[in-house]
């Protein structure tokens, strides 16, 4: 049955690709924003799709149980998982966004790169091995280890789905816009192709296919970015000073690009954004889920060690790429700037700096390669998100809350697959609905919710013996609501999205993290302290056994095996 489904899926996909291409070819003339159809890029991307679909076919033959679907049977090595985590985390936003930020402002881009990286050591030191030792399929397994299943799981599933939804919308809209520019495809078709491909990977290949898509994408992205950075440095005899000197000479902001600019306004925003990025990483459900794919705590630690290394290396590359774009794109403004005028900005917008640079250093073929990598990047990230959302519904809500654990792996697997289809459709619909919206705040919002709702609950349930169900769930809900509410009344949403007059936003800081995360921790502490019910006593009594397992891994070995 899977085989026919897979074949039908492939046919559907081929049809959609063809339709998209025809549309693109037909609509080439009238539009200004859309690029010409880039056949090299499409061929390269086609190659990637064919390769990943073969992997999916192979993965489908190995995906028989719920455990295979959620965790690839727990047989991924630390090194592989490290690459997959990097592939899951290095989104198109960080590749194109940060290099674009460096291109526009220089130094400020570096501040963001560092922020996106510092969550990793914290995740390593405090959570990685404990997650692996306590969990099976989702982070809710860990949070609800000694707590009442229904409230904790319902909360964790909500936390997962809300984070996934915002992250997903940002990815889908970004994908549509990017593909429109890169491949000359219609926005709607671009979003649909992303949706269909991601459904194929997750539906048929589960975690195995998702993992390999992420690994391949990570390797492609790291190789492509390394090549670009080397090509830039080579021009300056590997002397960064010469690169910076040239950039300062050419850039319209001149020496200002060498120092901090307007990105960090006040110290409170600085701390709040920092906390959101640092602890948000440890609360992203699709990242946490990756820790259950390895067989032991040792491999889990190796995974984060490698992931941190690759991600950090990648951010150093994006910095060089941004400066390289400043220097090299201005040399041929007629190719890369609107009307060949430096003042009018880059063709396709500021996020295109890295893409144009790929053309400048490697010609049309390399441009095709980097465009395909950007598309692959989006696919890898949305697949991880879909898988995480599907497991929250099937494992946490269906199997544990609704069926009270009285279901078999085959049923759970079927529910995951149905959920995957639903999520795919919802993602495409949302992607199309938000086409014209400003979604820039959504990734930050996803991080804010992750750090204010998911992280405090996970942290306190694992590390604080007096934490109770009531405390954890109340605190989590407080964090969830306050982070969303404060984001709504902050300038990027209140003024930029909802159109209220400038200066009317009630929350003056760039991120709610500092306040909403503190509120969540405080609520968990106070409510747990006040909770002296019989249930609370029982939950506290269960702590020593949970601690032995979280610290030593005893009883956890093979938890995700067969």
């Amino acid at each position, binding site marked *: 049955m899977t085989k026919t489904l897979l074949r039908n899926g492939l046919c559907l996909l081929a049809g959609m690709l063809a339709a998209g291409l025809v549309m693109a070819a037909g609509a080439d003339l009238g539009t200004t924003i859309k690029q010409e159809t880039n056949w090299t890029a499409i061929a390269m991307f086609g190659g990637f799709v064919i390769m990943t679909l073969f992997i999916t076919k192979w993965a489908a033959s190995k995906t028989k149980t719920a455990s295979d679907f959620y965790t690839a049977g727990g047989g991924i090595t630390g090194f592989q998982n490290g690459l997959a985590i990097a592939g899951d985390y290095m989104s198109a936003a960080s590749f194109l966004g940060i290099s674009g930020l460096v291109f526009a402002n220089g*130094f400020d881009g*570096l*501040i963001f*790169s*560092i922020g996106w*990286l*510092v969550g*990793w*050591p*914290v995740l*390593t*030191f*405090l959570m990685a*091995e404990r997650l692996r030792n306590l969990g099976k399929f989702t982070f809710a397994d860990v949070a609800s280890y000694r707590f009442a299943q229904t409230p904790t799981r319902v909360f964790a599933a909500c936390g997962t789905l809300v984070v996934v939804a915002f992250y997903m919308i940002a990815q889908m809209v970004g994908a549509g816009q990017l593909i429109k520019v890169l491949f000359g495809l219609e926005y709607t078709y671009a979003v649909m192709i992303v949706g269909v491909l991601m459904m194929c990977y997750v539906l048929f290949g589960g975690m195995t296919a998702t993992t390999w898509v992420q690994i391949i994408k990570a390797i492609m992205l790291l190789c492509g970015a390394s090549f670009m950075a080397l090509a830039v440095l080579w021009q300056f005899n590997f002397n*960064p*000073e010469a690169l*910076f*000197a040239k950039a*300062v000479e050419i850039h319209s902001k001149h*020496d200002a690009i*060498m*120092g*901090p600019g307007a990105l*960090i306004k*006040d*110290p409170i925003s*600085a*701390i709040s954004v*920092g906390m959101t990025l*640092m602890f948000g990483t440890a609360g992203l459900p699709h990242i946490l889920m990756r820790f259950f794919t390895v067989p032991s*705590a*040792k491999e889990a*630690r*190796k995974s*984060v*060690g490698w992931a*941190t*290394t690759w991600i*950090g*290396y990648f*951010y*150093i590359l994006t*910095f060089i790429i941004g400066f390289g774009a400043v220097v090299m794109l201005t040399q041929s403004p007629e190719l890369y700037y609107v009307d060949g005028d430096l003042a009018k900005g880059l063709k396709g917008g500021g996020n295109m700096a890295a893409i144009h640079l790929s053309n400048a250093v490697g010609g049309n073929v390399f441009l095709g390669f980097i465009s395909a990598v950007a598309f692959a990047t989006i696919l890898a990230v949305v697949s991880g998100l879909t898988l995480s959302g599907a497991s929250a519904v099937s494992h946490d809500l269906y199997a544990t809350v609704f069926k009270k654990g009285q279901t078999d792996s085959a049923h759970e697997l079927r529910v995951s697959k149905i959920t995957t289809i639903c999520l795919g459709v919802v993602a495409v619909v949302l992607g199309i609905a938000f086409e014209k919206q400003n979604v820039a705040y959504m990734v930050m919002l996803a991080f804010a919710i992750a750090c204010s709702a998911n992280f405090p609950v996970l942290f306190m349930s694992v590390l604080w013996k007096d934490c109770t169900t009531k405390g954890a769930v109340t605190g989590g809900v407080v964090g969830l609501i306050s982070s969303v509410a404060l984001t709504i009344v902050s300038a990027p949403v209140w003024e930029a999205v909802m159109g209220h007059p400038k200066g009317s936003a009630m929350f003056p800081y760039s991120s709610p993290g500092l306040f909403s995360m503190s509120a969540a921790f405080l609520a968990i502490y106070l409510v747990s302290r006040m909770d002296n019910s019989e249930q609370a006593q029982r939950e506290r009594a269960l702590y*020593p*056994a949970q*601690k*032995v397992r979280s*610290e*030593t*891994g*005893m*009883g956890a070995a093979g938890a995700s095996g067969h």
Partner: protein
Amino acid sequence: MRQEELVARITANPKYEKLVRMRSSYSISMTILVMVIYYGYILLIAFDKEFLAQKMGAGMVTSIGIPMGVGVIILTILITNIYVRRANTEFDSLNNEIINEASQK
């Protein structure tokens, strides 16, 4: 029953106490180290932008902030991997001793 007995044996083992104490103090100090480095850098940006915009040397263009920023990235990678190495060798072998001692009769 067997599970409870194992838990009781492990908690009674002084090595378990030692492992938990050693590893948590190590991971907490590493976390604090990363936070000091990161928030130190961020607060420097918030309070003293001129300091970071200073040039590395006379006649140079590169500002102090750039090697410092790249340094923060490299330190983050190093600190993470140092922790992983120690946890995977020293702590893990102690961990294995504890589990072996608990499971043999």
